[in-house]
């Protein structure tokens, strides 16, 4: 998709370069492409419009857009920078001050509140040396209390519950008293899922908030949410004026435009990202990664991180270095493909590699999707694999014969490989990338 957007932007500028008169039309066209990309990523339509209008003004004010060798790339950079800025520069922590600190968790049904409550407790306990208490205030959903109980056992964090009591305000207040007398320094209050239009339930969460005066109120949003994210985020904010947002189910392939919509609408920072069903899958929010993801630019950092989980850090560091030195070769590529296959979660991973999505765009990605690429690489000599620049016409012809694909396909693959390599190299030098890499080293 990255290639898609920047390609589209490039073509919007094609042939018009140097023709000063066409500036505005030119930019308008590319702005439209950007808007489409945002909307396809579930960014709210109105916000996409406002956002791109702003981009347009900026682009018009940036003299070098049209004189640039690749105006499309300049545009992408403007978009990226603006988006990163919008989604919040520095990551903001949560406020756990107070005796105890009180964290209230709110959100729509099924957004991931209960799971996140557990993750946050686990995070505070293991990373922040806190002594948390989970509080079960969902008195409606069948087995909601059991669910939190099981989670509390998994992470060995105590739970406060009262199955006889149907009043969440009371339960929460009692939990705080319990925490004070039993040495817990932070309580995490899990609440029932509710719709913003459900007046009774919205009043309830208001009452809970007023009754316990949390140090931190979080609003949990499913990253797969569509256009409605704006309405919900706004309605909850009006009622409980939350301090931050949690973005869940980010382990899928959703582009996550809701993140931009929510931040844009309520201006509250996104504080955590949830990336799985197990308790350790919690992460702080990285605006650059999110911007890349929304724009479909691939997320090389997440890819490298995932890869790190899978193979040893040395290997990941080696690949990283090769990318930086622009020495990424067919062996590395093949190695990565194999690693990806092992990781299982093929499609989302593959899209994390900048430039990769284009190569696999029209394929239903499964192991077989790679067999062509693999057979091509396997028909290369060891020298060719480690020196892609060796591939001249006669070598390509030999490879074509060897793997049974036609010369056109070989050419295409080699060309795409080159582009991908360039892209990865370029991204590895970008300022965002360095920052992110720095943040990665735990």
């Amino acid at each position: 998709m990255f290639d898609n957007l920047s390609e589209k932007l490039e073509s919007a500028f094609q042939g018009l370069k140097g023709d000063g008169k066409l500036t505005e039309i030119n930019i308008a066209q590319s702005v439209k492409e950007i808007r489409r990309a945002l909307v396809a990523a579930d960014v709210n339509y109105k916000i996409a419009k406002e956002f791109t209008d702003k981009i347009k003004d900026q682009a018009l004010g940036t003299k070098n857009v049209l004189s640039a060798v690749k105006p499309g790339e300049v545009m992408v950079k403007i978009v990226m920078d603006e988006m990163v800025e919008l989604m919040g520069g520095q990551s903001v922590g949560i406020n756990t001050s107070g005796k105890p600190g009180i964290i209230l968790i709110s959100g729509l049904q099924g957004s991931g509140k209960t799971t996140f409550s557990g993750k946050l407790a686990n995070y505070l306990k293991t990373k922040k040396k806190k002594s948390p208490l989970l509080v079960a205030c969902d008195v409606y959903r069948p087995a909601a209390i059991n669910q939190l109980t099981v989670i509390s056992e998994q992470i060995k964090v105590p739970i406060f519950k009262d199955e006889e009591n149907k009043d969440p305000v009371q339960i929460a207040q009692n939990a705080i008293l319990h925490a004070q007398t039993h040495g817990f320094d932070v309580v995490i209050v899990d609440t029932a899922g509710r719709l913003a239009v459900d007046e009774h339930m919205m009043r309830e969460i208001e009452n809970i908030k007023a009754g316990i005066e949390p140090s931190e109120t979080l609003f949990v949003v499913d990253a797969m949410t569509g256009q409605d994210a704006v309405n919900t985020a706004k309605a909850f904010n009006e009622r409980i004026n939350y301090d931050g947002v949690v973005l869940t189910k980010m382990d899928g392939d959703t582009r996550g435009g809701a993140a931009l919509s929510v931040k844009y609408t309520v201006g509250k920072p996104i504080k955590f990202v949830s990336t799985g069903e197990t308790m350790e899958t919690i992460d702080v929010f990285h605006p650059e990664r999110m911007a890349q993801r929304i724009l479909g630019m691939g997320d090389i950092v997440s890819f490298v991180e995932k890869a790190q989980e899978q193979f040893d850090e040395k290997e990941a560091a080696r690949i990283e270095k090769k990318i930086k030195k622009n020495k990424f070769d067919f062996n590395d590529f093949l190695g990565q493909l194999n690693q990806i296959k092992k990781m299982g979660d093929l499609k989302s991973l593959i899209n994390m590699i900048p430039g990769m999505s284009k190569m696999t765009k029209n394929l239903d990605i499964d192991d077989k999707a790679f067999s062509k690429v693999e057979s091509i690489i396997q028909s290369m000599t060891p020298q060719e694999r480690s020196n892609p620049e060796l591939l001249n016409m006669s070598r390509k012809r030999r490879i074509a014969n060897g793997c049974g694909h036609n010369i056109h396909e070989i050419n295409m693959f080699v060309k795409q490989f080159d582009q991908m390599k360039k892209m990865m190299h370029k991204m590895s030098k970008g300022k965002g990338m360095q920052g992110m890499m720095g943040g990665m080293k735990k």
Partner: protein
Amino acid sequence: MSFFKKMFGKKDEETIKAEKAELDKGLERSKTGFFDKISKAVAGKATVDVEVLDELENVLITSDVGLETTVKIIDRIEARVARDKYINTNELNEILRDEIVQLLAENNNTQEIEDFRPPVDSKPYVMMVVGVNGVGKTTTIGKLAYQFKEMGLKVALGAGDTFRAAAVDQLEIWANRVGCEFFSKGMYTDPAAVAYEAVQYGINNDCDVVIVDTAGRLHTKKNLMMELTKIKNSMNKKMPGTPHDVMLVLDATTGQNAIEQAKQFTAATEVTCLALTKLDGTAKGGVAIGISDQFKIPIKYIGIGEGMTQLQVFNKREFVDSFFKKIEGS
């Protein structure tokens, strides 16, 4: 919630008329409303103003219909206006509705169901329920079991989610609420074995319906999707032809990702029908139109609340009506 009861419940002529009137009044009231705009700009013309098309695009996209389907709908309207030229203003919003209803109809090769009667004459009728995390699978199963039970059918629920915390408990509470049979092998057991034995249980206990729950999973997780295929196959091994239906549950608040969900779940389990949940919120569920447009999978049920009775049989016309009602209301 009463609003939706009214919208989706079986209605007599009177209520329909009253609603129409109410709707028309609403249209009059909102002078800058969507239909007002579209009416003015289209009436008597052979083409549609760009401004109107933009407005239409805006409305469809902000309802999660998605770019592709939106463009398709706009093309259809343009063609229709070009053909019918002189169009009475009152007819205009009808056109839009019609086109969407047709779009839904064209792609649903199956007949629209009228009530909750099991669609297959088999004892037991077996259904497997799949979907990403938290969309409402378990709740929808509970509601569906209630409907079947109301019909006097003997229903068994199979606890195939053995992974998520307290998932088995949750389904068991639903079974108790409904007063139906419940089959479980407990947490952390092999879901394929649960599914197999749930069908067995249904046969042994003379059940009319068996519904098997599965753990929520993101469609990108290959291993989990393979597990789903395995669960399905194990049911078929126990009783050839089962599951008769594989129901994919979609959350109406979901955006464009739902399309990928439909694609991947279909690839893994040959989804035969959809349930669209959480339509009681402000989300319009437009992505279902897009999915219906791209996959030939009928929407069968809609969820309109957390309560046991808050499930309805999908009706294209009513869905489209409520869809536009929400648009006019927002």
